[in-house]
């Protein structure tokens, strides 16, 4: 007799195939997620305002950081701004696009500078210096990109870009210089003056360079804009040549060149004094600036005599730049809306130093009147300003 129960227990058992198993698991996990998120937690109407606010912040904060010139290197949102700029730069593929983006970023830094300088303070000194330096660096990068442009169409586009940004740059810098004034930190004066030199005169050079590229595009050699720098008589450039050992007598030549530049700068300063008439420019500002320039010249001479060519070159460069752009820093007599007197200092000590110094200058200006035009000859006055400068630096 057949044991039917045994037979039944031996009936075949099927197993779910691996493929079907994976598909079912996938469906189950999808349902888990749907159950977890759909209609239970995030999508509940009571969370809608929070979600809306979060989305708004996600869009509004980067937009605010990117477009607002108040977001500068000392602002906590500045990294957001630079990240967006880097993404923008990364998405600019052609040299023209990259050039345009770099010019745009330079413009942003200059706008930030203007905003920072509107109410200058000791706390903002570092931010101002960093912002000017960043603007110069981005512009240098833009120059490098410009040298990579080779076809005529792109050159035309580049020329338009140069034209578009030129006026903006100049306005921002002139306004910044005017806001900061002659009483500002030496480093700020130097950097803004260097930037002014770069963005006003050099913009013209670059415009000319684009024209030249346009005219000679068929036979042009890459990188000639950078080559313009090679014509520089900068002592630093010559020092580099010395280090390369290309010319053994260059050191003496460099010293001569530096002395010549120093003399030329001194001559420019003297000319500046003549070019800034008392009736148009505020005499005390002129005096402060000239004293600063003389102080720099003295330091440059000292550095030159001690053989520190690099330092003397830097001092001469900044002195030259400040001399060239002096008119932007000095207040004009009719300028009644000047806010600088209110905002030039922040700490009480600094304020007292400046007010004392300014009072003394005022007294001396009254005393000397038109008989004494050469300010550097007045040693007592010079000492006051040296003291002021030293205090500021401290």
């Amino acid at each position, binding site marked *: 007799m*057949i044991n*039917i*129960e045994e*037979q*039944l*227990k*031996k*009936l*075949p*058992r*099927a*197993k*779910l*195939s691996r493929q*079907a*198993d994976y*598909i*079912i*698991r996938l*469906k*189950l996990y999808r*349902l*888990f997620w749907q*159950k977890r998120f759909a209609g239970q937690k995030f999508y509940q109407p009571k969370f809608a305002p929070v979600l809306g606010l979060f989305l708004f912040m996600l869009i509004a904060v980067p937009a605010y950081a990117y477009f607002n010139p108040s977001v500068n290197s000392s602002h906590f949102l500045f990294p957001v701004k630079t990240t967006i700029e880097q993404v923008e730069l990364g998405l600019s593929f052609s040299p023209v696009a990259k050039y345009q983006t770099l010019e745009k970023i330079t413009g942003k830094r200059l706008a930030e500078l203007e905003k920072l300088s509107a109410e200058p303070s000791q706390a903002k000194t570092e931010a101002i210096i960093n912002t000017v330096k960043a603007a110069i660096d981005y512009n240098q990068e833009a120059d490098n990109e410009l040298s990579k442009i080779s076809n005529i169409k792109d050159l035309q586009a580049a020329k338009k870009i140069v034209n578009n940004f030129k006026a903006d740059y100049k306005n921002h810098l002139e306004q910044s210089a005017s806001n900061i004034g002659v009483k500002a930190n030496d480093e700020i004066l130097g950097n803004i003056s260097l930037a002014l030199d770069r963005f006003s005169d050099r913009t013209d050079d670059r415009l000319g360079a684009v024209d030249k590229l346009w005219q000679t595009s068929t036979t042009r050699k890459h990188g000639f804009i950078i080559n313009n720098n090679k014509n520089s008589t900068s002592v630093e450039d010559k020092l580099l040549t010395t280090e390369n050992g290309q010319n053994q007598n260059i050191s003496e030549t460099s010293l001569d060149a530096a002395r010549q530049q120093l003399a030329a700068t001194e001559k420019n300063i003297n000319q500046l004094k003549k070019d800034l008439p008392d009736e148009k420019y505020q005499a005390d500002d002129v005096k402060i600036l000239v004293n600063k320039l003389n102080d720099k010249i003295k330091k440059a001479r000292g550095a030159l005599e001690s053989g520190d060519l690099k330092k003397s070159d830097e001092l001469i460069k900044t002195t030259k730049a400040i001399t060239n752009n002096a008119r932007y820093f000095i207040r004009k007599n009719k300028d009644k809306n000047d806010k600088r007197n209110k905002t030039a200092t922040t700490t009480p000590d600094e304020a007292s130093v400046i007010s004392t110094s300014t009072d003394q200058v005022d007294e001396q200006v009254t005393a000397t009147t038109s008989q004494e035009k050469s300010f550097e000859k007045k040693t007592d006055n010079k000492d006051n300003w040296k003291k002021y400068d030293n205090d500021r630096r401290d």
Partner: protein
Amino acid sequence: MSQKDFINYYKEYKDKIYNYFWYRVNFDQVRAEDLTSEVFLKALSNFEKFDPNGSFQAWIYTIAKNHFLNYCRVAYREISLDQAEQIKVDNIKKIEAGLEMEKVVSAIGELDDYYKEVLLLKFVDGLDNQEIAEMLDKEEGAIRTQLSRALAVLRSKFEKYKYD
């Protein structure tokens, strides 16, 4: 009860539920897989209704049974009885269980639905009498009686096959 608990139950019962459908859809692999998938999705959707103190096996088999009934209502409308019989014969041959086993399967197929269900739940799905009773909404004693009757019918059928 968490996601992890459900996945553990799935791992334990996936083959049993697949097997349950495999026998009931005439050994059609694809259809059995679909039904298994649907049952587990239905179970997950209602997992919060499952009482952790109760038996998951009884709960999932009840869902499988109800799902299968729903499936039959639709399937019988779509397919004729002759076609269903042909599919069944073809699929039995595919399982390659041996001649003896083929006879057993065919004999089970010829039983009344109620006997067939009780036998499969007991011997193929491995449920005990109480679980079968719970699932079919009957008394445990009634299940025991049905089982012995089903076995007797099957035995007689099998004897008949032997002499044929």
